């Protein structure tokens, strides 16, 4: 297909950035930040499929992210499961939960959908805070290292590469989905639900499928985060974290997969850059967000792509 070539080029460029980046980073702290960028990017790429392409909002994705993280933490730490098994079980469990709540939730539109997903995220955060026996409650819990075929995967540098590889895989999956018939159907749904239904697209089924898929992306990213950081806290399920994910994709540009990655990068790095400003950090953070949205109203990637007169992906 002719469409695969620009994808290959984009993925190669993104891969090159991922390879060069650690060479430019002065110390391990920044490598950890870069690892977080890629893990956040996985959540954002999945969330962008739901929000950017299917046009449904979710303010509860941090809940799915945290569920994945805790599934890995508890299954490996308490029950001694193998790491990859825990990751897969977490993804499957989160997928099932997302599937279970998707039908009633996705019948809602606009503000009501946002409220329902917000409630879902809050419920997950409460459960993680209260089930102290399993989750460690508000203090969080330590996570054993990920062991694959007897090899313990530890160390910041190694996790950088794991996160970068997983991110590239997520981006490749998303790009291919968007250009497949189901992906075109999703975009059609966003444009006009009536017209989409009139050509035989089962709107509910498509929305449920993309909701589940985006939840699974978040869960896998959460599992990887748990093993990379070796510690999880319920703050990962918090409302602010969900808002952060949505802000990332809006900032980077809705309906742009590379925009989702860039948005994740910007909003992961920005607080670190501003941390030295102490009290002024939040003011400047807000001012930068406002500035970007005023001058690049469609998000960074689509706005710049339009300015350069190219079609964005």
């Amino acid at each position, binding site marked *: 297909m002719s469409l695969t070539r620009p994808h290959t080029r984009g993925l190669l460029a993104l891969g090159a950035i991922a390879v060069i980046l650690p060479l430019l980073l002065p110390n391990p702290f920044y490598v950890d930040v870069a690892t977080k960028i890629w893990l956040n990017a996985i959540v954002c790429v999945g969330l962008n499929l739901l929000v950017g392409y299917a046009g449904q909002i979710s303010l509860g994705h941090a809940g799915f992210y945290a569920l994945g993280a805790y599934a890995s933490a508890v299954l490996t730490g308490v029950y001694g499961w193998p790491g990859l098994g825990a990751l897969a079980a977490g993804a499957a469990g989160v997928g099932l939960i997302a599937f279970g709540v998707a039908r009633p939730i996705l019948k809602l539109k606009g503000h009501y959908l946002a409220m329902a997903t917000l409630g879902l995220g809050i419920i997950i955060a409460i459960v993680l805070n209260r089930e102290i026996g399993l989750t460690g409650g508000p203090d969080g819990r330590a996570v054993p290292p990920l062991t694959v075929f007897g090899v313990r995967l530890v160390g910041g540098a190694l996790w950088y590469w794991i996160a970068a590889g997983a991110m590239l895989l997520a981006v490749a999956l998303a790009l291919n989905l968007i250009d497949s018939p189901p992906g*075109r*159907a999703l975009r059609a749904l966003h*444009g006009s639900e009536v017209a989409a239904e009139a*050509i*035989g697209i089962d709107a509910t089924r498509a929305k449920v499928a993309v909701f589940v898929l985006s939840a699974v992306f978040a869960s896998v990213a959460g599992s990887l985060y748990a093993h990379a950081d070796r510690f999880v806290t319920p703050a990962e399920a918090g409302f602010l974290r969900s808002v952060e994910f949505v802000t990332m994709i809006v900032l980077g540009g809705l309906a742009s997969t590379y925009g989702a990655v860039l948005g994740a990068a910007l909003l992961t790095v920005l607080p670190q850059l501003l941390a030295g400003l102490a009290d002024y950090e939040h003011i400047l953070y807000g001012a930068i967000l406002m500035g970007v949205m005023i001058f690049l109203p469609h998000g960074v990637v689509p706005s710049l792509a339009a300015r350069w007169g190219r079609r964005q992906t």
Partner: protein
Amino acid sequence: MLLELDNVAGRYGRNAVLHGVSAAVGAGELVALVGSNGAGKTTLLRVISGVGPASTGRIRFAGHDIARLAPDRRVRLGIAQVPEGRQVFAPQSVDDNLRLGGFTRPRRALGPELERIYALLPALAARRRQLAGTLSGGEQQMLAIGRALMAAPKLLLLDEPSLGLAPLVVAAVFRLIADLKRAGTTILLVEQNAQAALAIADRGYVIETGRLVLEDTGTALLANPRVREAYLGV
């Protein structure tokens, strides 16, 4: 009869908009449904395609009782709708819009079908890669019709295809509809432009406040004094 409606009623919330509508469309027929704004024309089409409000009564299509089927199942049975206001998928290319029209069909059938549509609508063939949102109103209407035809429908539902188009373009759209009918497509055409619709229709229904009040051949309705006064402004 390909499509039979028996005592169909529909409502938006508490407001009943269709009252006991019974009508039929035979295979190969071009049937026009005319009436003024708010008479229930669009609602009736949407009830038939399944994207509209909940309805009661029986709807039979090609031997199936479809009244309770989801819209995508009805498309698979052979009902394609061109929605009011065209509703093309603006950010996607003409090619992608047409391919989406064949969403319910096996992928290998789409290539040849696509070429058939481009042969039928040469104006679109020159704009395959162009985004649908950048087409003119008339081209968008042609695209919306082409998109519906990609489903290879047994019954084509056309909702106000002349709405908001320049007179010359309206004439082109009606020529296309007449061509489709001659090629054997069964069409149910909803129009406020009663003159043009009845002129190409085999039969017509007149709908007033959710009830069918007249039924006759297209030519007879055009000559009917009541129709002439109310809808043709003669």
